[in-house]
């Protein structure tokens, strides 16, 4: 039985690596192979005590129509089919309880369901930024929130999983804009 602590410790140490590494592999796969969709959003500048400064990314679309015979309750997992419009911006056009057979889709959570429409909870809600850039990011956000094109979230999507890759304004990456402004 003297080996038991060592076995437990070994398994624990491996698991402590395996869990984040498994996550990293999934996210890397999504970033490398996923389709790029652009979603219009807003983003103020709050703070997470564990992970630092971030922009709270809030896609403008927060509701989607529930098909007539679909029984959707609060907190249920649901799949949203993504359709890209003529302006290049994507939106959720239909919901289903199982993954759609084709096309791009995102795994979401439903919130309130009322009057044939479900509030949707997106799988991403924050974009982490450097502490030095955060105040400038806040100003940039305030200036551009209501611009014609608005801020877009660039999201990579693969088999329902979504990873927020970048924020951009008129096609220019958010970090590049900020670095120009800070100079």
């Amino acid at each position, binding site marked *: 039985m003297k080996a038991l602590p060592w076995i437990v410790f070994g398994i624990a140490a491996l698991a*402590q690596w395996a869990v*984040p590494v498994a996550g990293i592999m999934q996210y890397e796969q999504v970033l490398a192979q996923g389709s790029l969709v652009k979603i219009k959003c807003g983003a103020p500048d709050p703070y997470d005590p564990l992970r630092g400064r971030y922009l709270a990314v809030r896609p403008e679309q927060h509701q989607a129509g529930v098909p007539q015979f679909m029984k959707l309750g609060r907190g249920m997992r649901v799949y949203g089919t993504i359709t890209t419009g003529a302006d290049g911006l994507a939106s959720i056009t239909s919901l289903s309880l199982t993954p759609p057979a084709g096309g791009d889709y995102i795994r979401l959570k439903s919130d309130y369901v009322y009057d044939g429409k479900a509030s949707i909870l997106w799988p991403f809600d924050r974009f982490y930024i450097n502490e030095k850039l955060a105040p400038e990011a806040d100003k940039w956000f305030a200036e551009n929130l209501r611009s014609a094109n608005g801020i877009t979230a660039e999201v990579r999507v693969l088999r329902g999983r979504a990873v927020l890759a970048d924020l951009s304004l008129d096609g220019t990456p958010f970090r590049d804009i900020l670095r120009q402004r800070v100079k």
Partner: protein
Amino acid sequence: MNNSHQRWLLEQLPQWEHDGLITSDAAQALRKRHAVDGSQSALAQIVIGSLGALLIGTGLIAVIGYNWDDFSRPVRLLFAFLPLLLTQGLSFRVLQRGATATPWVRETAALLQALATGACIALVSQIYNLGGAWPDFLFWWFILSLPLAWVLRSHAVTLFYLIAIALWSVNQVGHGNPWYDSPLLYPLLLLGLLPYWPGWQGTASLSISVRWTMTLSAILGLCSAAVFVTDIQGDYSYYQYDTYLWLWTLTAAVCVLFPLNQAGLDEATGRKPQVVLGSLWLLGYGVAATFHPVSRDILKGTSNALPLPWCQGLFLVLALFALLAAWRQRWAVLAIASVALLPLIAFLLMQGKDDPNSSLLSSLVTLHLAVVGITLIVLEFTRRRGAPRLGAALLSVLIIARMTDSHFSLLAKGSAFIAVGAAFLAFNFFMSRRPQAPTPV
């Protein structure tokens, strides 16, 4: 007897020997019997070690939080895994040293590794801009930290785990959550600390802080599960409060009857938080149930709860614990725990009918609590494990409750209150003069 009590005793022995209170042989026998365990370093050392680990871990998280934008993703990932690797190496060394490693070094290594694990997960989620769902983050953090409580016998990690599983369970009381992502997992999570439990071979007695944390964590976790199972989904989702209140009461009965070994039974009641907190709830619930309107809500909750699998599971555990308690002759706690079953008895007697005018339950509870109060006093006078002051307090509260409920004049009520108060003080005075009973509850 813990180390500080033993130290006090050893300090007194020379004086007692000098005063002729004990012989030198008796003093020697006491020294042998209550030798201070040298392997356990002072609490201060452990606290300082844990604080140091906590500061380093928090600092690490803050450094990570800065978000090193100038580095590439692989380099930033290296930042996440390097502290984890270092702390794993430290724990490895501590394990190698085995029993020779001092407790504070063990605590520090375990806490540092737990914090490095959390920091690693946090940084990965920062790099990939993952959502802010802290319960998911917390879940993986405490699951991955749990083995450190087993192998390094770390109290700090145990406390972290107990607090984290309680917080997670409370948060998971969400409408529509699937069972595998809900507080229903709490019993399994608590079982994760099984090798740490009292009675488990090769483990020392749990410290009072771990006991209280464990009890509070269990109460929060199990009560969250009780709320979760009463979720009614519809256009307006809600939880049935009268149903989960009775499930909470069954949970309190389970806590009170939690099996103890002989050493546990011999300890003072204050060192058994599950008995203290469980009894307080049960007696409070009992007194509330003596009021007719409350008893009606309780009966409604009982009929709602009976078909729930969670309720049936609680019954099974309760029956098992009650049998064990009867075998150990824990009559006082059995008497208190029986309060939880009164709504069921009333429900069966009424044959499941909801009669708004029936005062069966309130009368039954009043009678039962009076019997429990008298039993707790009588047990003490028959040299068994009783709780005379609790019994007297219960009788007093019961009389006051019935008086407030009655239609007597204010003068009559006031006189009754004075009489009860005086009787209670007299009883307390009498008990303080009486020699202590050999064993507590």
